[in-house]
Structures are given as C-alpha cells and as structure tokens.
C-alpha cells in the first residue's frame, strides 16, 4: 500500500482546517487572553493602588526584574491577599465549569446540557441550606466553615442518587434516562431546600447570597482546597477527548469502532461531577459559563473535542475572571454576585445562539 506524504501532510492536526484561523494558533491566543485577564483582574478593585501601578508591581516581583512601581507593602497586600486569590479562584472555577460543561455535552450528545444537569448545584445548595438553617449558630465559631464541605458532600450524594436512579432504568446506556433522572432528582432536592428555607425564613438572604456566587470572599485557602479536585478532574477529562469525538457518531457506531461506550460515559460523568461539585462548594452556583463558553469555542475553533476541551478551559478561565470585574465596580461597595453577572451576559448570548441556530453538534 503506497503512502503519499503530500496527503498525510494535509491530515496532520492543524492543517485540516485551513479555511479558518489555524487551530494550533487558538491555544496560545487563549493563554495570552488568560494572562491579560489575570493582570486586569488584579488591577481593578474598590481599594488599593492606582491601577496602572499594579502591572509594574507584578513585574517587580518577577525574578531578574526590578521596577520602581511606587506600590507600598500595604497596597501590595491588597493585590496579593485579596485580589489575587479571587482572580485565580475565578479562573479555576471558570475553567472547571467550562470543561465539565463541554464534557457533559459530549457524553450526552446534547448541546444544551450544563454541568449542573445531574444535580450538582441543587445538592450543593441543599447542603449549604442545611448548614445555615440547622447548625449556623453552633458552627459560627468553628475554625473552618463547614458549609463548603457539606455542600460538596451533598452535591456528590445528589449526583450519585441521579446516577443510581438513571442506571436502574437503563440510563447509562442511552444517556436520556440519566438526564431525566437528573431533572427529577434536582426538583426533589430543590423542593426540600425550599421547604427548609420556608421554615427558616431568617436565613434566606444568607443562603441566597451563598448560592449566587461568592468569589468576593476568596482566600488562598479556597484556592488550595479546590485546586487538587480541579486538576485531577480536568486531567481525566482531557485524557478522554478522543473518546468524546468517537461518541459523536452515536453509541452504536462508537461500539462497532471498539469504544467502551458505557465506561467512557461513567468515567467522564464522575470526573466532571467531582470537579463541578468542588467548585460549586467554594464559589456557589455560577450559571451559563458551562454552556456559553463551550459553544463560543465551537463557533470559533470547530467542534472536535481535542481542541474544544483545552480551549474551553482557557476561555472559561478568562471569561469568569473578566466577568468578575464589573461586579466589583458596578455597585460598589455592595457587590453584584458573579452568578448574576454571568447570567446577565450569558442569557442574551444564549438566545442569540438559539436564534441563529448556529449550535453545532
């Protein structure tokens, strides 16, 4: 069998899509965007040094660079202890929600699925509500706030229930039953949460501000807690991106091509859920990132999961860091929750996507 190098060349990754901006150029571009977002995020905030001094101060901290930025130690503390953890947490959360959303869309072959589909957000909300209603006064002087831990555990439990219910009726094979089980379990969990709130109306405000996204209180501790989960989860998802491309031809055809369809779906769902539950438990419910970012990437760089997953991580990080900025400035000093900003930006975008029917599968 003769092999013609000329055609092998055209099939090398990056060459196959010559009509667009070369696919290989997108990842560096996305990473540059993330860097710009990080610097912007560190520059803008209600208190602290003059904005243009911040990049100088950051450059000054780099090895072998010495710049006189005129930023005092106290001001640098604001940048490093208050703004930086917040920016990084936004980046981590945005990238996790985006890659989880893209992965869910892949395994369920449904472009409208988001990472909260199987009940992760509802579970986390219920967990937080339980802490606030049942044990807030008792846990107020604990050294560690139990709300994120309980939210994380409740999120995982909720998704497990969804999976068990869905699998009992053949959901692992078709995916559709699993989605429906997610809808049912989510309503049940939300109903329990509503009931608890009704009974304890004095904490409604606290619970809602917890649920609606709390990047504003981010500390380095939050970053350290959530990072291992996100790294592990993203690594597993990235390792399955070839399988997600295979699933695009349907379960049956993927099976005849040798793919272990049920196992891929299970592993991807577990990894995406673990990461989602971890970020929800530290940041609350941040809507639309998991849908909008993957679709944006599909529109600009194509639908292959090999590019979609890494690009979604990068664009997701940049998107949430940037989306977090207006919230700090707009209603200073009382902040707009990040979940409100993303939904406010995300919902119109989503409507336009539906309107143009440009949602590729």
């Amino acid at each position, binding site marked *: 069998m003769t*092999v013609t190098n000329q055609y092998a060349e055209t099939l090398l990754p990056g060459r196959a899509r010559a009509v667009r901006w070369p696919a290989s150029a997108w990842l560096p571009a996305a990473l540059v965007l993330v860097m710009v977002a990080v610097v912007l995020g560190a520059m803008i905030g209600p208190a602290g040094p003059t904005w243009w001094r911040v990049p100088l101060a950051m450059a000054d901290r780099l090895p072998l660079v010495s710049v006189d930025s005129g930023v005092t130690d106290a001001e640098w503390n604001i940048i490093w202890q208050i703004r930086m953890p917040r920016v990084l947490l936004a980046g981590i959360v945005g990238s996790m929600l985006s890659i989880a959303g893209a992965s869910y869309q892949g395994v369920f072959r449904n472009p409208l699925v988001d990472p909260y589909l199987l009940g992760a957000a509802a579970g986390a909300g219920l967990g937080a509500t339980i802490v606030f209603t049942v044990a807030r006064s008792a846990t107020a002087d604990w050294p560690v706030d139990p709300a994120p831990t309980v939210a994380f555990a409740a999120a995982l439990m909720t998704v497990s229930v969804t999976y068990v219910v869905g699998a009992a009726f053949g959901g692992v094979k078709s995916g559709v039953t699993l989605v429906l089980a997610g809808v049912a379990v989510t309503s049940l969990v939300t109903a329990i949460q509503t009931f608890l709130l009704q009974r304890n109306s004095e904490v409604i405000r606290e619970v809602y501000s917890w649920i609606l996204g709390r990047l504003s209180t981010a500390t380095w501790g939050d970053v350290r807690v959530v990072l291992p989960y996100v790294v592990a989860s993203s690594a597993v998802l990235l390792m399955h991106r070839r399988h997600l491309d295979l699933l695009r031809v349907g379960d*049956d055809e993927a099976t005849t091509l040798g793919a272990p369809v049920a196992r891929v779906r299970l592993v991807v769902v577990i990894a995406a859920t673990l990461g989602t539950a971890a970020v929800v438990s530290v940041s609350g419910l941040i809507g639309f990132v998991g849908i909008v970012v993957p679709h944006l990437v599909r529109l600009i760089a194509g639908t292959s999961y090999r590019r979609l997953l890494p690009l979604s991580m990068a664009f997701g990080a940049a998107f949430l860091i940037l989306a977090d900025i207006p919230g700090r400035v707009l209603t200073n000093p009382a902040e707009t929750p990040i979940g409100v900003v993303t939904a406010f930006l995300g919902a119109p975008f989503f409507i336009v996507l539906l309107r143009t029917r440009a949602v590729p599968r």
Partner: protein
Amino acid sequence: MSSIDVRGLSVRYGRTEVLHGFTDSLRSGEWLGLIGPNGAGKSSLLRAIVGIVPSAGEIDVDGSPLALRSRSRRAALVAYVPQEPLLPDDMTGAEYVMLGRSPYVSYFGSESRHDRAMVADVLERLELVGFADRRLGTLSGGERQRLVIARALATEAPILLLDEPTSALDIGHQQQALELVARLRHDHGLTVISAMHDLTLAGLYSDRLALLHEGSVVASGPAAEVLQADTLAEFYGVRVSVHHEPDGTVVVIPRREHLADDH
C-alpha cells in the same frame, strides 16, 4: 482474508424474537446478500454480528469465537456500515474517516503517523481527497455514503457488513458504491455481508443470496435459484417477472396489476 461462521444466531427485542437461529458460513472473500421484506431480520442479523444488539448463538471468525476477543480486536475484524449512519455536521471528512482507526489506538493514546497515512491512503483510493477538509454537513448523500464506506475501510477489517448501503442513493451512485465494494473485495479479499432492497443489484453483486422472512431463512443459494417469481410473490407479496440475461444476470421486473378499466 477471513472466514466467518454464524451458528444458531437469535435476536430478541423484549419478548419478540426477530431472528430465529440464523446459520451460515462464508469462506474468505465471499459476498452474501441478505434480502427479504422490511422487518425480516436483516438489520438485526448484522447488528448482532457486530455486537450492538444482544444475541444468542455463536459467531466464529477464522475458526475462533468472536465473543472471546477484545472489543477493539472485534472492531478491527468486522467493519460495519449502518443503514442510517450518524454523521456530525461539523466534523471534517478526514476526521470522520480517522474514526475508523480507533481500534488501533490505545485507550489514552492518539493516532499515529501510520494511522494518518492510512486515512490519507483510503481517501486517495476512494477519490475522496477533496472532501478531507470539507464538513460532513456540506456534502451530498452520495459523498457522505462514500465517506462512511471509507471509514469502514480505514479499519482494515477483513469482514465488511453493509446495511442497505445504497438505499439513499440514486441509481448511478448505487452502482458506484457497489462497484467500489466489489473492487475492494477483489483487491483485498474482503468478506462481505450486505442487506439489500434492490433484488436485481443484490443478485448482481453477491455470490449467494439468503432470503429472510419473519426472522428465518426461507431460501438460500445463487441468485438464479432464490430470485424466482413465485418465491418473491410468496414472501414479498409482489407481482414480478424474472428475466435471465444471457450473461447470467437475473433481472427482477415489477409488474402492474391489471385493473378492469385499464385499456
């Protein structure tokens, strides 16, 4: 170059058995045409062989049971072209054909230089190079069908199962697709099982025909034996005349009913 033996293969959906103990044996390089009315069990038979519907019975490839081999080994032995393949609109032709190399890629691996060269070669042989960068959603039915066949060939499987490979195509593209399979069978010794609706084409390309009716084989053998007017009338409920060309081709011609007011 592989032979395939199917013994007592049965398929049931719920309580309904749709295939009753199908048994046949194909030597290497043979082409078996499955014919029969809708719902006769042709597709179920093919789906059972590739393992996407549960079945009872035995399938041996080259004398050893297919069920004992690994998932990817099975995929590398038997390629399958479904009746209605699912083609993602936004995937390019090259990406799609590359999926056929999946059986050779390890779980966490990615396609090798050899896999890419193989895909380039298949595209070239099937004259599909121009579609390598085109998105599937922009292609015509005939072009898409050829890409599906290309994907099956990229698996390098010695056994090819085709479920109604030409039902969506016009007569020219039907012939083109079947000629392609015939040529590849000749060049590479592929063993082919195809389900087909067009009886004349089925007889023309297959070595043997098996007529299925309600899940059982009711006639089997060379086209001249199976394609008989009374047999077809009994199992298809059609009125046809069968014409034998001097070169051995069997032509099935539909006949109209004669209505009283026809003159």
